[in-house]
C-alpha cells in the first residue's frame, strides 16, 4: 500500500502547481512532525526531488514524497484538496487520528 493516497482534486492541484513553479520533476513533500496543540502536526513543502529513503507516490505526474518515519503515521491517509467558503487548501484525511484539535492541523494517534 502506498504511503499516502492522492484524491483526484489534490492530484490536479499538485500537477498545476508543479507546472506553475517550473519544476515538473519536483513534487510535494508531506509528513508529520511533533508539535502543534494536539501533539503531532502535518507539514508540506515543495521539493526538487525525492530524498534518500523517501517513498514516492506518483498519481499521473502529481508526485508526493514521504519520509519513512512520517509514512508510519500517514498509512491509510488520503491527501485531498477542498474548496469551501471558509478555506481552500490541501486536507489530510487520516484514519489513524484518535483526537484532533479544532483547526484540524494537529492530531493525536
Amino acid at each position, binding site marked *: 500500500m502506498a504511503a499516502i493516497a492522492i484524491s483526484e482534486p489534490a492530484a490536479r492541484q499538485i500537477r498545476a502547481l508543479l507546472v506553475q513553479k517550473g519544476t515538473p520533476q519536483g513534487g510535494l513533500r508531506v509528513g508529520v512532525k511533533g508539535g502543534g496543540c494536539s*501533539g503531532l502536526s502535518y507539514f508540506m*513543502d515543495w521539493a526538487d526531488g525525492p530524498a534518500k529513503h523517501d517513498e514516492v507516490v506518483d498519481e499521473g505526474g502529481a508526485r508526493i514524497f514521504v*519520509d519513512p518515519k512520517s509514512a508510519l503515521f500517514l498509512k491509510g491517509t488520503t491527501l485531498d484538496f477542498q474548496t469551501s467558503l471558509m478555506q481552500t487548501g490541501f486536507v489530510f484525511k487520516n484514519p489513524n487520528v*484518535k483526537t484532533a484539535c479544532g483547526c484540524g492541523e494537529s492530531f493525536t494517534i
Partner: protein
Amino acid sequence: MARAIGIDLGTTNSLVAYVDDRNRPQVVVVDGKKALLPSAVHYRMDGGIEVGGAAKRGAAEKPVDTILSVKRFMGRGPGDIQPEDRGIYHFDETGSLVKLAVNHGKRSVTPVEVSAEILRVLKRRAAEHLSGPVGGCVLTVPAYFDDAQRQATKDAGRLAGLDVFRLVNEPTAAALAYGLDKRSQGTFAIYDLGGGTFDVSILKLTDGVFEVLSTGGDTHLGGDDFDRVVAERLLAENDLSSSPMLLRGAIAAAQKVREALTYQEMIEIDVDLPGGRILRAKLSRDDLEALIRPVVERTTETCLGALRDAGLAQNGGKKVDGVVLVGGATRTPLVRRHVKSIFGQEPLTDLDPDTVVALGAAVQADALDKGGRDDVLLLDVIPLSLGVEMMGGVVEKIILRNSTIPASATQQFTTYADGQTGMVVHALQGERELARDCRSLARFTLKGIPPMPAGLARVEITYSVDADGILAVSAKELTTGIEQKIQVKATYGLSEDEVERMLVESIEHAGEDVAERFLVEWRIEGERIIQSLESAFQVDGELLSPDERAHIEKRIKGLREAMTTDDYLAIKAWIESTDGASKAFAERRMNKHIARAMAGHRVDEFAGQVRPPDDQ
C-alpha cells in the same frame, strides 16, 4: 573519469576551472584564447543562439536581442527589477517570473534559460578541454544572493545539464583559491571590483568553514566606470564630441590605455575610430589616477560599512587577517593602494583576480568530488532535522530534514512558570522525539526576560543554516528586544554512516517515541492546568459554590490519577473534561477582574480613550 568543475557565473564574464592531476586548479580557455567568456547571449532572428565574445560584439547592432548582465535579473519577479537595470530590454511581466522578450516578441526567455546558455558553453568547452564528460559542478553566487536568486542559479545549472553539487559564495571561493581555509582561523576581507559591480565581504574562518559576517556593495560600480571617464577625457582632448559610436571606440581605447598603465608609467598610442578618425591617446599613470580616483573612492564608505557590520570598525579596520582582491579592475595600482589604506595591510595578489573565484570553485568541486574534506558532510539539504528542547525534554523541530540549504525558520515560545526570567535554549539535531535521543549541538540561556505570568512572554527562536552549513540560533524576547545568539556547524563531525544510523533508529522507535512525546506533553499540560486552577481557588475561591468547587476538584483528582499512568489518551480526556468543568469559573473570574479594573470610572471614559483626539 568525469572531472568535477567550478564555474564563476559572472555579471560581465564567466569562467570554468578544474583541478588537474597534480592538484593544481586551472582555468579552461573558452573563447578564442581567453579564459573569460563574456556573459552575453544573442538570440538570432533565425533561431540560432550565440554566446560569449561574438554575442557581445554584436550587442551594438542587436541590443534588444543580445542579453548582457542577465545575472541582475536572476530570481527576480516583476517589480523587483531596478529601473537602471531595465536598459533597453523588453520585459514580459505577465507571469510570476520575469521574462525577456526578444526577436520582436516572437520569443521570450527567462533569465534562468539565458544563464543556462552561458553554462552550456562553459560545460562544452570544459568537456572538450578535458577530453571527456564533466562530473559534478560548483557554481558561485554573490554572498548577498537571496534564496530565490540562489535557486534560479541552481536551476540554470540543472537546465544546462550540470550536476550542481552546491553553490558557494563568491568571496568564499576566492578565499578557498588562496587556501585561506588551511589556516586555523581568521577574519578576511574580500574586495571584488569587477567590470560593472563592486562587492566587499567580510568572512570569518572557524574550523575550516567560512562564515559571511557582512557584505556591502554597489551594483553599478566597476572597471567600466574607469573606462568611461578615461574615454570621455580622450574624446575631449581630441576635440571630438561624444556620440555613442565614437564613445564606444574611445572606450575600447581607454581599456587598452588603462591596461598598459598597470605596468608602465606612460603611454602614447593612436587608435582608429569608426568613420576613419584617429584618436591620439597620451596619458601618464598620474593622469589616469587623477581621473579614476573619484570612482575608486566610492568604494571606501562601503568597505567601512561592511567592517562596521562585522563588528570590526575599531582600529581603523586593521582587525582583518588578510585581504583578497577579486575582479580585473583590482589590477589597477591605485585600487591596490586604496585597498591597502582601507584595511591597513597589503592585499593578496598572487592569483589572477579575474580567475580567482573560478579557481576556488574548482577547488571546492574537487574536494566535494573526492568525498569532502575533514569528513564533513557538505550537502545542499539539511541531513537531520534541527530542533529545540522544550519543557519535559521533548524536541520541537524548527528546520526539518531535507530542507534545502540555505534554510531559515522562526517559532515563538513562551515561559512555563510565573515570573520566569530565563530560558535555556538547547539546540538539537536528529529525528527522535525526545532530547535525550538527539544529538546536542549547543546550549545557551536567554536571560533578562521581565517577570510576568506564565505563558505571556514571547520568545522568538530563529534557526538559520547558511550556504556553508553553519547553523545560527538566536532567541529574542519580543517585549524587551533582548537577544542572544550562537553559531554551530550543523554537520560538524557527522559522517554519512552516523546520519544513516540516526535515521534508522528514528524509524525503529517511531511508535514509542511519539507515544512518549504525547505522554510528556499531556502530563505537562495537566500539571499546568492543575496549578493554575489551584492558584485561582486561592484568589477567587468565593466565586464558586461548594458544589461547583467539588465538581472541579473531582476532575482534578481524576486528572492527577490519569497522569500517574502512561495512558496519554486518558490524560488528554481528563484535561478536556477539567477544562470544560472550570469554564464557568474562568468566565466569572474574567468578569470580576474587568469590573475591578473599571470600578470608579464611567464607561464613556474608556470609550474616550479609543476615540480619535479631534473627535472629543
